């Protein structure tokens, strides 16, 4: 399976989000670069609203992620509860 990734700015807002992503995607690898974090996963990566809300202790709208995203790879699907990045083959 090919690698999908999501790169986020390193800041106070993304810290709990990165934590949530790593918790929900056990195979994901976190590559820390200057001022940014690139999370790589094999074929599929999920960002879950509920996990983020548990960590930050407030309601979270996944569209808030728009502010801190840098780049990504893979097909994307977003709902109220999840953002999924995936390759079909």
């Amino acid at each position: 399976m090919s690698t999908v990734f999501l790169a986020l700015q390193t800041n106070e807002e993304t810290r709990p989000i990165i934590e949530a992503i790593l918790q929900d995607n056990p195979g994901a690898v976190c590559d820390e670069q200057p001022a940014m974090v690139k999370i790589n996963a094999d074929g599929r990566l999920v960002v879950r609203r509920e996990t983020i809300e548990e960590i930050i202790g407030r309601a979270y709208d996944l569209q808030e992620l728009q502010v801190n995203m840098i780049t990504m790879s893979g097909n994307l699907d977003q709902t109220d509860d999840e953002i999924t990045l995936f390759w079909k083959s």
Partner: protein
Amino acid sequence: MDMQVAKKKLGLKERYAVMTRGLDWTPSYQKMEDIYPYMAYEGIKIHDWDKWEDPFRLTMDSYWKYQAEKERKLYAIIDAFAQNNGHLNVTDARYINTLKLFISGISPLEYVAHRGFAHAGRAFPGAGPRVACLMQSLDEIRHAQTQVHAISNYNKYYNGMHDFHHMHDRVWFLSVPKSFFDDAITAGPFEFMVSIGFSFEYVLTNLLFVPFVSGAAYNGDMGTMTFGFSAQSDEARHMTLGLEVIKFILEQDPANVPIVQRWIDKWTWRGYRVLTLVAMMMDYMLPKRTMSWKEAWEVYFEENGGALFKDLARYGITMPKCAEQIALEKDHLSHQAWSTFYNYAAAANFHTWMPDEDEMTWLSSKYPESFDKLYRPRYEFWREQAAKGNRFYSKTLPMLCQTCQIPMVFTEPGEPTKICYREVDYKGDKYHFCSDPCKQIFEHEPEKYIQAWLPVQQIYQGNCFPEGTDPTVEGFDALAAVLKYYNLENGRDNLDFDISEDKKNFAEWRGQATKNI
């Protein structure tokens, strides 16, 4: 008793449907083909526009909200940067030349992209892509503006950025990025989406922004890093649009596949040729390097693009053929480009220099196959000559490739000591090319590319001198007249970094910032 019940909000999918397709209507007294006149001539067949959906499902109301937040963050930092004399915190003044390249070469393209997406969005009958194009069009003008604002803090202190837009339309090497985008916006709306939306934004943008932005971060440039990240947050959405557009077109009709494949082949090559400027910036112009051009190409194109084309294989799309040639050029591209700019430093809006000993060592380690054998000896010779007072500035004009407009400095694939020349006879004229892909692109659309505005030919025709210039007078200095036409001041905006005002001023100002005098 009235109960206060929280009004149930619409879910993301419903909200997206209401705010895109829900706002659309079917015309009753005008024909669709009159309203959308550009839908047929490129040969692309679309049967159901409603199949297109933005995977982020972003609607205009949310768009304004998040963009406003991005702007607030960005301008808070730009103000802090200016208030804190941020320009003196960069690694050394050579770094500022990357900003000159960016403001005159890239920022004007953001503005053209704004116009291009506005035009493409207007041309599509589908509400989904129209809304996504509208957002991208607004993003692009935001990028142009924020880049101008962020870099204007450098323009107050350093040379070469004072008239970037005028230069973009005139300076010889800036015709490379300019003609690339002009080529895209003069294509039909579907080709525009494949050229910029897919090939540039999805396949190649990481090679432009990620190295540039992390380069800024590595080199202490907080202002540029911040606008870069702010723009990059929009890029993630643009990439998604680019990929969705491709999948949508391919799923609509099998007859679309060969047309799209030809566009992908063409635009991957065209985009790669423009990235020559980025390759040279990464390997030579950043005092503190992030990664080499070759490494970036391997991560962001070979690995990441490889995954993408594997995924698109189910539609019958294959990796562009030019990828093989690019792989052969990756050990040479940046060195050949920097050598060219070193020679033509008299006619550019930024300074060049020879790498120091540590930098040569870095280049050897990153390019073990090519650097010590082919490029180090050349640089050592030039450095010796410069030390003896013979710093060489080429004042003749190079032959340009008719398609990419880059001087014909690239070597044969696999034969790095032989310059690559291709030519085509068309309607009694001879046209020159730097490579097979550039030649093939011309051969497919000769009537488009014979109209190219080539800076060298224009200078020879006398079109690049200030009004009233008489090139027939004795002792006429063509270069001086051309620099005047570019609005560049000879000896100030051009030539070697070592003798530049930028270098002298930066050292002096940094001294003042750290000592009591």
